[in-house]
């Protein structure tokens, strides 16, 4: 089941950090991503492979470089299937409240 792969991929702080990096600036090389982490190149590659297998990262070749792009579709599918269906209204209100309170502090 594809959802399992997505949840497993997201259940790791390094992999969430990699997604956040791509959200800030998309289309990065392995070398660029590696420079943001205190981890071996091999370790970063392993995390990127898990993200690719979950379809959260899609790679494209550009000349000699392999660029990594954040693919938000699986998260959207989870949103549409789980969040939209049950809790969106409440979640939005709570997220707003959280943002407001955190802004104040």
């Amino acid at each position, binding site marked *: 089941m*594809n959802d399992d792969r997505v949840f497993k991929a997201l259940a790791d702080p390094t992999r969430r950090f990699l997604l956040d990096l791509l959200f800030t*600036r*998309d*289309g*990065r090389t392995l070398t660029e991503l590696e420079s943001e982490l205190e981890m071996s190149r091999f370790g970063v590659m392993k995390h990127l492979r898990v993200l690719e297998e979950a*379809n959260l990262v*899609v790679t*494209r070749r*550009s*000349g000699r470089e392999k*660029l990594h*792009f954040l*693919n*938000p*579709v699986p*998260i*959207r*599918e989870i949103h*549409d299937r789980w969040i*939209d269906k049950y809790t969106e209204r409440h979640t939005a209100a709570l997220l707003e409240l959280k943002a407001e309170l955190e802004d104040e502090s």
Partner: protein
Amino acid sequence: MTTATQTTTQVYRIYIKATPEAIWDAITKPEWTARYGYTGLASYDLRPGGAYTVAPTPEFKAAAEAQGFPCPDVIVDGEVIEAEPPRRLVTTFRMLMDPGMAAEGFTRITHEISPAPDGKSSSLTVTHELAGAPLLAALSRGDNEAEGAGGGHAWVLSDLKSLLETGAPLAG
């Protein structure tokens, strides 16, 4: 490709339990495009240099105007660059619903469809090159969803998958 174009390109991929032919039809035929996502009526002249346009359905036009957006009779225009059914479709794309986006000019969208090794599903990858089009890039990312502008490509693809796999879009 420079760093600037890398950061403005958006890539979306979805796996759908459908044949490449069914996905191709759902992208290129108005009787399908009216049923998911932004529900526009797509029209493609599927040869290099052929015209690509999207017209609003009467319901879409009425809804847009009720929200205070004047809706033109052509909401997207562009040109077919490559058409290899059912695998690859490259077009230019200009959004005409909003004067600011229309002024950003033409962007480029590539649709790639591949059957998955399991033979039961296919992948659809949408690559949108959005250099010089920050307003359309925000719309495509779904940034304006809270204002009723739809959730961009990810939302459209999730809806397309639902339609092809279950016979009904998410909202329906």
